[in-house]
């Protein structure tokens, strides 16, 4: 182990809570996200237990509504959006481009404090009495009718939004200004292209969310008519504003995952990513087109038929760059030397789950089918395939891949592979039945439901048990490895990326000498230099 690294640079609380080291801030984010993930996961567990039977037996309707609202708010804003960018991104971006830190280290720390403040305020709203609007805060329910802590929760999300903006800004400037000599744009690892695209969305879309949330509070607290028709407002205006942020936010939640998958597929098939430029520009195309599809959430809301046609067309268009990525990943495997380490199992799982999520997205982009399927469990299944099957799987894959670099320890390969396989099967068992429920017409956010839907709900809840256990497993074996894992070498995967050319864990200032880049990325030796290190 490297004797002089960022982890042993200081042990005081002060050295952690006032650090400007991107690696330590990444760890702060990582620890906070575990807490939020467990809270959001607990809510999901309660929901799935309640839905085992058609009647209301575990919780009251008010409680149920608070549970799914809390699950949505926590998972979207306090887990998925910051997940890969703020943990893996924060840690890896400067290392990947051969820099000492992000461009604005203190803004980076501020971003974490804002995130925690926003999270604290939101948790206060949840535990003081809860919020029952759904994470979408639809008006006029949220502004006039809901008797819950809407204004407080909205304030929490508002504050956390600034943390997103700061992170996005930091990444954009860093990737523009701090690349090592010789590291041209087309030599950037694709993870950076996708984080760059993500950052553009973070900076451009989050302010719209902030304004929308302010308008909710203005109507709810001051009684100014904006969204409620009774006092002269327009309820659909809210949906346009909300989805103008929240649809691009879906791409905030998946693009970084796609970025991680490039790194994993390339490393474990020992080949450069097929069609590098297409994959790189596909990320930016998704970010750009993603701003033009928000109306596909409103096909039955009463927006004009012409608007629906345009939004449906654009939604099909935004699927093209995603399809390009999937085909390129598959082609990357061709004539590779493939090894099935845990990160690769996560990556393969990602491709399968993301593709199912993407294809079912086409069902929903298709106007006439969306009329039937929108606001049913079909939608719930679809976006969980993208965000949980896609993003969370990629997050776990990336976490395992960079774990030796981050902690300087190796985890148990056996348990890591077991967890990866269990997550894949548990996930499918949980969410595939929900497609069937949706196709049959079971609406989402239903606390009680007609008995003919029970069999699929029972299957889904059974899958959720497996999934919950599988998600807890890494907590155990990764936690164990922190203390008892074998020391990791600098480059356990024999990878050419800059982040692997410095010791594990990296020294406080990342590189002893400024690295210089002379080749394109992903120049893997055709075979692994060594046998699996983690066995």
């Amino acid at each position, binding site marked *: 182990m490297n004797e002089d690294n960022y982890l042993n640079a200081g042990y005081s609380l002060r050295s952690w809570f006032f650090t400007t080291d991107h690696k330590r801030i990444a760890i702060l984010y990582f620890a906070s996200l575990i807490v939020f993930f467990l809270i959001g996961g607990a809510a999901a567990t309660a929901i799935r237990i309640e839905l085992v039977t058609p009647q209301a037996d575990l919780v009251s309707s008010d409680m149920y509504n608070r549970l799914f609202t809390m699950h949505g708010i926590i998972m979207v804003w306090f887990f998925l959006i910051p997940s890969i960018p703020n943990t893996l991104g924060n840690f890896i971006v400067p290392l990947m481009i051969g820099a000492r830190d992000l461009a604005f280290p203190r803004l980076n720390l501020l971003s974490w404090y804002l995130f925690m403040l926003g999270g604290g305020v939101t948790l206060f709203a949840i535990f003081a009495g809860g919020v029952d609007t*759904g994470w979408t805060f*639809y008006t006029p*329910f949220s502004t006039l009718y809901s008797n819950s802590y809407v204004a407080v929760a909205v304030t929490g999300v508002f504050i956390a939004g600034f943390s997103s903006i700061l992170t996005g800004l930091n990444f954009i400037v860093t990737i523009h200004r701090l690349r090592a000599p010789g590291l041209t744009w087309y030599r950037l690892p694709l993870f950076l292209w996708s984080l760059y695209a993500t950052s553009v969305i973070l900076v451009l879309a989050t302010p719209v969310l902030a304004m929308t949330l302010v308008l909710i509070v203005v109507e709810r607290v001051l009684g100014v008519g904006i969204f409620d028709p009774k006092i002269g407002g327009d309820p659909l205006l809210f949906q346009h504003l909300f989805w103008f942020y929240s649809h691009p936010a879906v791409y905030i939640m998946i693009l970084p995952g796609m970025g991680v998958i490039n790194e994993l597929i390339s490393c474990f098939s020992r080949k450069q990513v*097929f069609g590098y430029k297409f994959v790189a520009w596909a990320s930016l195309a998704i970010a750009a087109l993603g701003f033009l599809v928000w109306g596909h959430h409103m096909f039955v809301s009463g927006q004009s038929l012409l608007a629906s046609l345009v939004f449906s067309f654009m939604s099909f268009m935004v699927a093209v760059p995603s*399809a390009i990525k999937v085909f390129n990943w598959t082609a990357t495997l*061709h004539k590779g030397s493939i090894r099935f380490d845990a990160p690769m199992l996560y990556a*393969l799982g990602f491709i*399968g789950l993301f593709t199912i999520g993407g294809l079912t997205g086409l069902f929903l982009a298709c106007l*006439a089918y969306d009329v039937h399927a929108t606001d049913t469990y079909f939608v719930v299944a679809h976006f969980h395939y993208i965000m949980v099957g896609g993003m969370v799987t990629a997050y776990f894959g990336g976490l395992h891949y960079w774990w030796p670099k981050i902690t300087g320890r190796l985890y148990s390969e056996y348990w890591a592979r077991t967890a990866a396989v269990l997550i894949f099967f548990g996930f499918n068992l949980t969410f595939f039945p929900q497609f069937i429920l949706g196709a049959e017409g079971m609406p989402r956010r239903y606390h009680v439901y007609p008995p*003919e839907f029970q069999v699929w709900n029972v299957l889904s809840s059974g899958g959720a048990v497996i999934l919950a256990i599988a998600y807890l497993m890494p907590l155990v074996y990764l936690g164990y490895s922190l203390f008892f894992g074998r020391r990791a070498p600098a480059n356990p995967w024999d990878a050419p990326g800059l982040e692997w050319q410095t010791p594990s864990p990296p020294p406080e200032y990342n590189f002893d000498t400024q690295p210089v880049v002379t080749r394109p990325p992903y120049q893997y030796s055709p075979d692994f230099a060594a046998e699996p290190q983690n066995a």
Partner: protein
Amino acid sequence: MRHEWTSFWHSGVSPHGRDVDMLFGGLLLASALVLGLLFFLLTLFCIRYRVSNAVDRDHRIRKSWHWEVTWTAASLLGFLALFVWGASIYLDIFRTPPDELSVFVVAKQWMWKVQHTGGQSEINALHIPVNRPIRLVMASQDVIHSFFIPALRLKHDVVPGRYQDLEITAERSGHYHLFCAEYCGTEHSGMTGEIVAMEAADYAGWLAQQSPSASLAQEGGALFRELGCSGCHGTGSKVHAPALEGLYGNPVPLSDGSMVTADDKYIRDSILLPRSQIAAGYEPLMPSFEGKVSEDQLLRLVAYIKSIGGHRS
């Protein structure tokens, strides 16, 4: 165990429902083909090119525009076809319904209140004759609800502050679920009901059996006097206000020179927001009834004005 447990596919029982089912089948087939191809290639490559397998790895396919262009173009064409298919059915589902048998639906937390023109009313149920297009005029008293009948593959939000037209047709008699699909608060999942599709004769019998005291239009006429509308709009009134006889369904010239058709929406808006569309030749004297009349009263007033309307030509 209930029989429904085993049969989980029920085909749509409306003309559009069949189209949507076809579309669903097409989407499933396309997805299965893509997914099948992808899983086949993934499995093949993973087995053939696993690191321990000493297989020929020379002559890798090189990066080439051909591959990229091929799969980009293939996706694009497939997507375009699906877009056109879905859009054409969608336009058909939501074309503006002609003046068929209309039924008023008022959504409120947490019930569906249905008013037939004959004065029959029901809660969380809607009786309709089979094979006859019914025009629903829907309004919400409070928050956004969504009128969803899975068996008809049909759904539309009911947004407060406006009327929403929707045409429904059931081809087979039976009982079908009615759900509220837009989250609307505490008892959202209790805001359900049933659509009862009946043969024409049974439907007529059902209507007769309800024996309401007065038709919707009659109740509306009473309200028309109670709320003071007749003071200005009634015959013999001294106030210069437009006469409403023969108004419904006909074009109305507005003071800004444009024309509108006096339909349900126009009448509703004219009661709530009288100054937004001023009939040509009249002073904007009428006070707004916003907040003074409920959706239930509004639809009665609309029914009354409709009943004294009829096509002039």
